[in-house]
């Protein structure tokens, strides 16, 4: 067992342990912090797999964006020190049973499927290679999905503003007129 394997198992323990605490902790703020640790662990796993660009994106988007958004919404919607109600015991038992059975089934499938990993080519995931392949206009390029996803982000941004906007007094008057 060399140092790379030890690092992998340490990262795996970090990811799974903090994910387990994130879904079982009864204090919602602690749950968000454990989720943060789990996401950082996943970024470390990407670094370990030497896909540095994805690791950087993971840290910027998930750790810097989504977790901060979740923590803000926790502060906006409830008292973060309060404990959440414990889920009912039968529900815990059946959910754990379903998760364990699913895990065992998938482990069995993965274990018996022989993956053919004898590929000789080196794996080049430098940023310039990613950019060239993603934005190429040949038949294997991803330029169309790239543009579509930018439209999706714009639509999501506008949608978020519209949904979360406080109704103005003019809107309320309008609604009252409609009800009359």
């Amino acid at each position, binding site marked *: 067992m060399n140092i*790379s*394997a030890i690092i*992998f198992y340490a990262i*795996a323990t970090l990811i799974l342990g903090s994910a*387990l605490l*994130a*879904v079982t902790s009864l204090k919602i703020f602690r*749950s*968000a912090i454990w*989720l943060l640790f789990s*996401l950082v662990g*996943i970024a470390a*796993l*990407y670094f370990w*797999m*030497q896909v540095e*660009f*994805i690791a950087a*994106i993971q840290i910027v*988007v*998930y750790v810097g964006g*989504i977790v901060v*958004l*979740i923590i*803000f*919404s926790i502060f906006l*919607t409830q008292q973060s020190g309060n404990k*959440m*109600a414990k*889920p009912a015991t039968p*529900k*815990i038992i*059946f*959910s*754990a049973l*379903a998760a364990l059975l699913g*895990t065992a089934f*998938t*482990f069995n499938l993965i*274990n018996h499927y022989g*993956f*053919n*990993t004898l*590929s000789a*080519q*080196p*794996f*080049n*995931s430098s940023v310039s290679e990613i950019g060239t392949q*993603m934005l190429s206009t040949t038949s294997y390029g991803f330029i169309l*999905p790239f543009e579509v*996803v930018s439209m*999706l*982000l714009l639509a*999501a*941004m506008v949608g*978020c*503003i519209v*949904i*979360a906007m406080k109704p103005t007094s003019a809107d309320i008057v309008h609604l009252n007129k409609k009800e009359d």
Partner: protein
Amino acid sequence: MNEIPLTHILFLSTALFFIGMYGLFTRRNLITMLMSIELMLNSVNINFVAFNKYLFPDQLDGLFFSLFIITIAAAEAAVAIAIIINLYRSHQSIDVDDATEMKF
């Protein structure tokens, strides 16, 4: 690097996916359910990157898929949190058991 077989990374992502599923089943709070969904999406991303690196190192399609998944997850989280805040304004609660007007 090559001492770790692909199956061990797949075991990790499978365990992470089912931890997220357990959280989705047991939690009743919308924000914590959203966190569980983020865990599941991340396990899928690990799978894409690992398959790309170990099985098809001459292409980068797996990386592109995980990039798109990260983008869409960010948009999804933003819209979900806007809806949650709006729900909190009208119901004073973000528990799924308290928002049952459309339940048949």
